[in-house]
């Protein structure tokens, strides 16, 4: 497969509008001074301003840079440039990089070097141990207060009853959550925000809500005994409380080298930021991994991993009893996924949920777990949709997905026959996020989008 097919470039767009705008600009007529070197491409695009915009793309990652004022990342000019390159590379004159390209690339090289320097020797860095310890202690104290406040709030809720709480104004829930954000325990805050959503989630809501309260209770119990917990478990608890996990700790762990397949990607809008969840599976090790990328406000999301493709490289896992979240420590060329990518797949629904149960037994706050289901069919049973495996075992599909057009994209792609589907499983319902279509393992994006 050509690594820069127009489809793959379009997949990098931050939203459909940008993809569309990029497509429209991807014609030679709109550009001047198009050029390419071994590592980059560049060109000038006349926009609404007087000066043409300088767009450049580092082909290695890819990374984008443009002089236009757009807040989208990559912007339409960057996308258009790469699209045009994918369509007609011959339009790009081979030559020396102009200064505005060379400088940027040099800067990038320096930055990358600095990053990998940090990655290699995090401990060699001179650290002010004393002030670090002081900051940690301060934080622990605040979180302790937050945990105590949350405990009081939770017990009060159980005493009053959910029926009574149902009529509480939304502002009350939000105030309780905001207090926990201030106490630097955003994990607890998001628990609280989920409760009213669960209470409004339709039939069976009480069962789901009491389950959520139980999980919160378990987290509070653990947080109250944080100093006594074994290190790995303490990591899981801190992470569930929403502590920022340090990159250094991940980079200190033993890196796992493999061919990593990006099996699905979901982008979610949170309170004040966006998160991209990218699920990876190691072709050889069968390890499941989660890469989180955050972007505040309108900042661009750096998404260097293309879903539906694979790369050779090392992942560094954040510590925990069941390490799942990871970061890319090193990577070489990206490429298409091979025919044997289903080797680490969950061959049956039972096998998949068993893996989840194991993960849950190690970390009871495991919220989402990726299932790579080889050969399941969408089936409508009693007005509910299931993914059914070769043993006729069915996985219930989440209601929100069923209401969206993504359900129909999945049904259509399957044609009623078995297909490889990736879902996020939470122990109750499955949210399909992607599918792979034979014969060429073509990636079908099923992440939340396209409301019906």
């Amino acid at each position, binding site marked *: 497969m050509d690594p820069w*097919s*127009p*489809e793959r470039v*379009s997949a990098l767009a931050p939203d*459909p*509008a940008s993809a*569309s705008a990029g*497509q429209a600009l991807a*014609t030679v007529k709109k550009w001047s001074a198009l050029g390419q070197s071994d590592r980059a491409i560049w060109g000038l695009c006349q926009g609404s301003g007087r000066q043409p915009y300088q767009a450049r793309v580092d082909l290695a990652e890819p990374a984008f840079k443009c002089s236009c004022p757009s807040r989208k990342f990559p912007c339409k000019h960057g996308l258009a440039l790469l699209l045009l390159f994918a*369509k007609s590379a011959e339009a790009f004159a081979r030559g020396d990089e102009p200064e505005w390209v060379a400088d940027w690339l040099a800067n990038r090289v320096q930055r990358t070097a600095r990053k990998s320097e940090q990655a290699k020797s995090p401990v060699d860095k001179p650290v002010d141990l004393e002030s670090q310890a002081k900051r940690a202690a301060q934080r622990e104290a605040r979180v302790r207060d937050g945990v105590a406040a949350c405990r009081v709030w*939770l*017990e009060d809720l*159980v*005493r*009053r*009853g*959910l*029926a009574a709480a149902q009529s509480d104004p939304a502002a009350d829930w939000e105030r309780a959550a905001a207090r926990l954000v201030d106490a630097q325990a955003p994990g607890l805050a998001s628990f609280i925000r989920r409760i009213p959503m669960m209470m409004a989630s339709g039939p069976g809501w*009480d*069962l789901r*809500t*009491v*389950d*959520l*309260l*139980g*999980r919160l*209770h*378990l987290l509070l119990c653990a947080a109250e005994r944080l100093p006594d917990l074994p290190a790995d478990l303490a990591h899981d608890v801190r992470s569930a409380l929403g502590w920022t996990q340090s990159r250094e700790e991940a980079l200190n762990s033993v890196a796992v080298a493999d061919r990593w397949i990006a099996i699905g990607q979901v982008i979610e809008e949170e309170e004040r930021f966006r998160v991209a969840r990218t699920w990876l599976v190691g072709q050889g090790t069968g390890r499941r991994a989660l890469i989180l990328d955050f972007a505040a406000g309108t900042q661009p999301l750096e998404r260097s991993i293309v879903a539906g493709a694979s790369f050779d490289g090392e992942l560094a896992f954040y510590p925990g009893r069941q390490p799942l979240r990871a970061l890319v420590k090193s990577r070489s060329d990206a490429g298409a996924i091979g025919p044997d990518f289903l080797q680490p797949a969950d061959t049956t629904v039972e096998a998949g*949920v068993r893996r*989840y*149960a194991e993960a*849950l*037994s190690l970390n009871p706050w495991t919220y989402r777990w990726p299932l790579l289901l080889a050969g399941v*069919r*969408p*089936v*409508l049973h009693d007005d509910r949709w*299931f993914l*059914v495996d070769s*043993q*006729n*075992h*069915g*996985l219930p599909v989440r209601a929100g997905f069923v209401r969206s*057009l993504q359900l*129909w*994209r999945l*049904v*259509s*792609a399957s*044609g*009623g*026959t078995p297909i490889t589907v990736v879902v996020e499983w*939470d*122990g*109750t319902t499955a949210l399909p996020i992607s599918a792979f*279509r034979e014969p060429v393992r073509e990636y*079908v994006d099923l992440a939340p989008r*396209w409301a019906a």
Partner: protein
Amino acid sequence: MNALTSPQERLRSLGAAVTIGTDRVGSAQGAVDALLTDAARFGVSARAGWRPPTLSGRLAECPPDDRPLAPGPAAATLLRLLADPDPALIEEWAQLAVRRGVVVDAAAAPLVLDWWARQPRRSEAVFAALGRRGEWLASLNASWHKPIATGEVPADADDLWQLSKSAERLALLISVRRREPARARALIESTWLNDGANDRQRFLEVLREDASMADEPFLESALDDRSKLVRRQAADVLAVVSGSRLRQRMSEAAKAIVSVRAPRSIPGRSLTRIVLQPPDSFVASWERDGLEERPPEGIGQRAWWMRQILARADLDVWTSLAGMTPEAILESLKSDDYFGDAVQALIAAANATSDARWSTALVRCLLDQRAIDLASVAALLEALPDREREVLSLEIIKRAPLTVVDRWALLGSLDEPWSALFSTEATKALSAEASPGVQDLARLSRAIENVSRRISPDAVDGFEQAVTRSFSGTLPPGALFSIERARLRADMHKEFTS
């Protein structure tokens, strides 16, 4: 506690307890903590111990389709079109796909189908471009299973006709009329006595399309309808049915108006002159045939009656009279006082019967008169076969005394298909003339938009040039969009051939 109770059941009872609240049930000290601890325990074990149900059902499999998928770039364009839907462009995409024998990719098919099902006018080509997968998906999702889905007459058309609301009945009638004209008429007749006047009028209007002598008896009887609205509509439809009794009556009346003066012998040639004699009084029965007695302002009474009669009369009345060609007849009429009225009537008559010979003659006559009425010309051109229409249109665009805006408007009103040669020539003619400055910009933009939707993909460069020349200074957004649209269409055509 019963050890055999499943975690789910335990959770359910905990859910009931926490809904009420421990205060209400007067629980003992520590009850809250015990409840939450149970919730944590059984919650985790319920999720960890979840077992999949065994289901025997399956979906009917999608029947295989040997047609290949639309090429990748074309598929990407379709997705882009769906993000900002322009029905005409999506339909054009689908027509290209159908012509090439390719189908929409499976993952995109639901997006297309969902868009299509929500359209008021559902294009057959778009549904056809989905291939067998489209039919299969529509069979699974009720909201896509539209009664007029495939353009075929639904099996329960009679029931739908009886039970639906006005708008849906009209849509049903239009689609039935296209497939089975006689059945459409039968539907109208089946509820004729109960439908309101407004509905009856709109239903008759549908019959105008391909109205034939088979409809004539019914329409003739509608001339005696209790509503004037309905009578007028019936007369309008009958006026386009050649051989109808109404046209016969009007032809008879026309014969009293049109006469030939004996050739004056001039040495070497004989000149036959046609003379018009408008009626002296309004015959009461004309009202039944849809004629208005009172003329609109600015037209004489007798001229008005004459116009209405000639517009509904067979054109043979003229040609059989003196064995003259339409051109000769028009030439001979030029000196007549009623020439202008006759031309208007003849334009209407030529339009009603789509007579190509008369249409050509009339357009040429208008050209010579340097009196181009755009709406009339456009209607006349419509009656011509493709080639003649293009030749004549080009002549008008090049020669007629029209403003740039009018030229564009005329071009924009022409029906497809446009040959590559015509598109190139027309845009060349339009770029020959620079913008005259202040003009009706909105009308110009609208006309350019129409052209951008029809121009042959081979003439896009010429189109862009012509648009640029027609505006002084910077192009307004509408014109830019039109250029983009034309380019997108051209790219789309290319994407299907690559």
